[in-house]
């Protein structure tokens, strides 16, 4: 809502307040003033001039040579390019020395050999937005009414010596979508009175009811309809002061009747509509729900198909307006209109909202109806409009109005105690302080033993319960005056859940290992949504995505991380280590919501270690990625429950990918991205992993139990085994660990040989076995006994021979 500082003064005394100090006060009491615009900012030296002569420029077809009286000693010659400039006009002249927006300085000049001492201005050149300029002057200079004085400051005539406050209204404060509403707010803040416009009625012999009948067939959606009839109007431009006020508020002037309806909309917050009585095609207005597929051509010349939940005004047969949204072209007020019907009505917010949404027509009217207008202003707004039309369009207002009224207006009455207010705010206000706040707001209030009974005016439909009154008290008391305390109730222990702690530990471990945390989008393309999914299902799709790229919920994180790798690679950032912990979304049969499962994923590429001056570097390989996971499992206490199994997965290198199992269930994978995919995405060798973090975090972990530090030495035996080339190291390790019994404490591989010194189809694996007994020093014999069992087991179970 744009509020002209000057206009506001019509309703409330603003003496002692500049626009800026007023703005600060309004902001602090609850309505944010988003900006204060000084309309004349950057404008200087523009006066009213009188065009005395106009002739064609001798050397230019499109230029005019004008002699203009600008109130100086003698008229000046000005060259003007506007097509509509003519002799006798009163115009805005930027004289030599004037400054126009954009720091454009007016100097004496010669145009095609003719002297020009200034510039005749269009409204655009004076900083007014094109969309606000009346059609007649959209492409030329602005022509003033003849009664303006030559030499006068044009800016003040145009109302540009004003400041406009832009209010950022929250949806509850639709009462301030009107000058009167703002006046009440400002009056309450400043403790000053609100002056209403005076309405004078002149008696007319003819009655409105003789001209038109109104029938409402949908009284729930339209409980009050008032029609005023004004005859013998003369359509012309509205007075300049009205036009400038409309423009300051962001509305384009049209003609006197339309401008007056808009002026009342701004003044009272009550949208009105003007019908041309003679174009109506009947003598009745019937308000009803539209028939399905019924059509209307609206004022903007668009034919629209209506639905049965739209409310329309009809002439008894066909629609002449979509209620509260836009009028029909068939009954539009035009230059030859002589009799006008002014509609002042109360339409329900929901029905207006529906139509405005369906037709994508959001207007100043619909916005106000949707949020609810003050039912008590409907009649008065109609009366005021009729009066202004008779005043500025020369018409006669017919006696009375035609009404259908089924509206019951009951102002809200709310009781609240002083204690409740103070308790909720933490304040210690007194009865008289609170009472004075309600009085300033012009709420009805009576006090009985610290209980306030407040009657809320209908303009404040947002106030319905105690809490609303508490807010009114708080904002008028001043939020700055509320004390600062901390909650003192029951003491509660603050902590993270076990799951949340595990997530933090997982992050620390991955970061300690050198990975940076990435956060990517949950919404992705249909194609990417299911790539690398651990659990393949149809993806969850948005009903109305903004683009295909962001239309589905992801089932995996790896595709998103590969995008990040691609992005960085393209910027010469080759060595990357990234991880993400986030949710993936799994559609569930028979469930309203998808399952959200937290995953941990990573992508590593380029050099893992690089210390060039010492000649050391190591590229990322499978075992780097696996090492990171091992550290992660170790941190979470899962090492014993984890297994790896060679596997093939779409999009992954078939020989360099492992499934990860937790207690026998697959929870994810680790490996190299398939070379074809790498090529498609323009990636170098890249390793990725993705695991169900949920599964990891939910696995039971034993508590930490101290075991004694060994007091006796251990004995280490190394063995080199020859096995089939297809045998996997993990199996051998498991066999050794099982066969070694209690004494075998550690098994670690220290060599793998597959070279030419081996028999074809064979390879050698060498393990270091550490034996120890916490109770005593082991003898060679003890160890040999255990060690032989190990050798027997690997031979029997894996056909392994000791390497000679």
């Amino acid at each position: 809502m744009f509020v002209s500082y000057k206009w506001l003064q019509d309703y409330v005394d603003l003496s002692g307040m500049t626009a800026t100090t007023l703005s600060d006060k309004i902001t602090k009491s609850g309505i944010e003033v988003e900006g204060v615009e000084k309309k004349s900012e950057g404008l200087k030296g523009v006066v009213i001039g009188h065009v005395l002569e106009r002739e064609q420029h001798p050397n230019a077809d499109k230029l005019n040579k004008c002699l203009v009286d600008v109130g100086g000693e003698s008229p000046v010659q000005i060259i003007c390019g506007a097509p509509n400039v003519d002799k006798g006009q009163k115009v805005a002249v930027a004289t030599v020395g004037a400054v126009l927006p954009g720091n454009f300085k007016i100097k004496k000049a010669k145009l095609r050999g003719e002297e020009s001492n200034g510039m005749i201005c269009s409204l655009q050149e004076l900083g007014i937005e094109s969309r606000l300029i009346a059609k007649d002057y959209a492409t030329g200079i602005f022509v003033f009414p003849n009664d303006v004085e030559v030499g006068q400051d044009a800016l003040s005539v145009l109302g540009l010596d004003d400041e406009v406050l832009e209010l950022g209204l929250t949806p509850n404060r639709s009462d301030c979508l009107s000058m009167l509403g703002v006046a009440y707010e400002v009056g309450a803040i400043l403790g000053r009175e609100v002056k209403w416009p005076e309405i004078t009625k002149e008696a007319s012999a003819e009655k409105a009811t003789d001209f038109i009948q109104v029938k409402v067939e949908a009284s729930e959606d339209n409980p009050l309809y008032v029609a005023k009839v004004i005859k013998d109007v003369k359509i012309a431009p509205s007075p300049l002061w009205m036009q400038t006020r409309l423009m300051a508020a962001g509305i384009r002037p049209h003609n006197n009747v339309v401008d007056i309806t808009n002026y009342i909309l701004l003044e009272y917050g009550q949208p009105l509509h003007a019908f041309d009585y003679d174009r109506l095609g009947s003598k009745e207005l019937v308000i009803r729900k539209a028939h399905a597929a019924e059509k209307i051509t609206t004022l903007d010349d668009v034919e629209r198909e209506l639905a049965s939940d739209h409310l329309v005004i009809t002439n008894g047969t066909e629609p002449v307006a979509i209620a509260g949204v836009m009028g029909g072209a068939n009954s539009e007020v035009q230059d030859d209109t002589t009799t006008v019907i002014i509609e002042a009505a109360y339409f329900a917010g929901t029905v207006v909202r529906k139509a405005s949404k369906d037709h994508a027509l959001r207007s100043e009217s619909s916005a106000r109806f949707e949020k609810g207008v003050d039912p008590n202003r409907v009649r008065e707004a109609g009366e005021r409009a009729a009066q202004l039309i008779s005043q500025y369009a020369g018409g006669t207002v017919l006696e009375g109005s035609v009404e259908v009224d089924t509206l019951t207006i009951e102002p809200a009455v709310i009781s609240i105690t002083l204690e409740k207010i103070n308790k909720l705010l933490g304040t210690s206000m007194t009865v008289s302080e609170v009472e004075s706040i309600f009085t300033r707001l012009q709420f009805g209030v009576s006090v009985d033993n610290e209980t306030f009974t407040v009657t809320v005016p209908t303009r404040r439909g947002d106030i319905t319960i105690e809490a609303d009154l508490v807010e009114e008290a708080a904002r008028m008391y001043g939020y700055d005056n509320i004390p600062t305390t901390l909650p003192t109730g029951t003491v509660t222990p603050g902590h993270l859940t076990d799951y949340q702690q595990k997530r933090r530990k997982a992050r620390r471990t991955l970061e300690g290992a050198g990975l940076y945390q990435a956060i990517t989008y949950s919404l992705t393309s249909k194609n990417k949504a299911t790539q690398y999914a651990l659990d393949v299902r149809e993806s969850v799709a948005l009903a109305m995505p903004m683009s295909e790229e962001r239309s589905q919920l992801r089932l995996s994180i790896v595709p998103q991380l590969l995008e990040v790798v691609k992005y960085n690679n393209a910027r010469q950032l080759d060595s990357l280590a990234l991880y993400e912990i986030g949710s993936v979304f799994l559609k569930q049969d028979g469930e309203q919501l998808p399952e959200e499962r937290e995953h941990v994923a990573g992508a590593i590429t380029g050099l893992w270690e690089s210390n060039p001056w010492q000649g050391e570097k190591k590229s990322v390989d499978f075992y780097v990625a696996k090492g990171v996971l091992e550290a992660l499992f170790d941190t979470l206490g899962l090492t014993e429950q984890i297994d790896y199994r060679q596997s093939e997965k779409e999009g992954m290198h078939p020989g360099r990918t492992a499934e990860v199992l937790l207690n026998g269930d697959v929870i994810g994978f680790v490996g190299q991205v398939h070379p074809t995919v790498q090529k498609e995405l323009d990636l170098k060798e890249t390793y990725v992993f993705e695991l169900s973090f949920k599964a990891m975090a939910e696995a039971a972990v034993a508590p930490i139990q101290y075991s004694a530090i060994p007091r006796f030495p251990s004995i280490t035996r190394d063995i080199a085994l020859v096995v089939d080339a297809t045998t996997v190291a993990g199996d051998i390790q498991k066999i050794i660990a099982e066969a070694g019994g209690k004494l075998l404490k550690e098994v670690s591989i220290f060599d793998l040989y597959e070279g030419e010194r081996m028999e074809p189809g064979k390879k050698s694996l060498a393990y270091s076995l550490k034996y120890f007994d916490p109770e005593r020093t082991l003898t060679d014999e003890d160890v040999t006994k255990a060690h032989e069992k190990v050798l027997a087991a690997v031979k029997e179970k894996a056909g392994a021979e000791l390497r000679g």
Partner: protein
Amino acid sequence: MQERLQELQAEALQKVAEASELKELNDIRVAYLGKKGPITEVLRGMGKLSAEERPKMGALVNVVREEIASKIEEKQQVLEEAAVHAKLAVEKIDVTLPGRPVNKGNHHPLTRVIEEVEDLFIGMGYTVAEGPEVETDFYNFEALNLPKSHPARDMQDSFYITEETLMRTHTSPVQARTMEKHKGQGPVKIICPGKVYRRDNDDATHSHQFMQIEGLVIDENISMSDLKGTLEVFAKQVFGKEREIRLRPSFFPFTEPSVEIDISCKICGGKGCSVCKGTGWIEVLGGGIVHPNVLEMAGFDSKKYSGFAFGIGVERIAMLKYGVDDIRHFYTNDVRFLTQFNRHES
């Protein structure tokens, strides 16, 4: 004999003094003190002496031997030390060469902010509550006093999946769910961090996906002044002790009264600059006293309980705190961006 001994001593000491290497010194030791050395020879010749002279001469021999031995010892220490020095001199390295790089990752800046806020509130007795990112219309809107026809729904253009489910537009549904779990029994003290989604085109200041942290306290005597105090603690912790906070009345459907909180601008110190649009204040938070309808819908008696709630945008905090000028950086994951947040900041 005595003379011979003194001669030998002088000769040996001379050599010791001249010796410049450990080996040389060892040779001197062997030569003079060894079994075949001249002193031993002198001892052997003692048989010719009288019984009276013998002990005297014996004592003298010992004095000479000890003198030589001690000088050798002294010299040896000197030479050994020199040898060590020489060796260390050779081992000298260039300490200005860079150390071996240690791989080091870190949190995303948004996680950094979230963890800082979580820890602050955990310290004040809060727990961290989480909930689904795909929500029902009920929890996202209706349970928060936003019935289907509510005009305030215009404020949040949402990504719907079906008529009844959507990507949550704020983390408030977690509050609704948590309250419901408490079955009308206070106290509730939670903060809810998480991802939220709105139908916005991505640009420098908008992101269709972003993060929020919301807080909720419900107990028997919670007031607006408690909210004010809590948020002051928060603002000072996150933005620094010098920051001032300002409260402005505002509107949210789920709180009444509602408040918006500004902090004094860090860039200009409150004088007014382009970041704060000349006002000296920057809006960072919204909150208020929980609307009685919200309490009642979740099963709390609004006569007995009251509460406050607040919400902040994580990106907004990070942008203000670290001076980030484009919200898209948080989701592009350019490593040149991510690596800037890998150290402690006081």
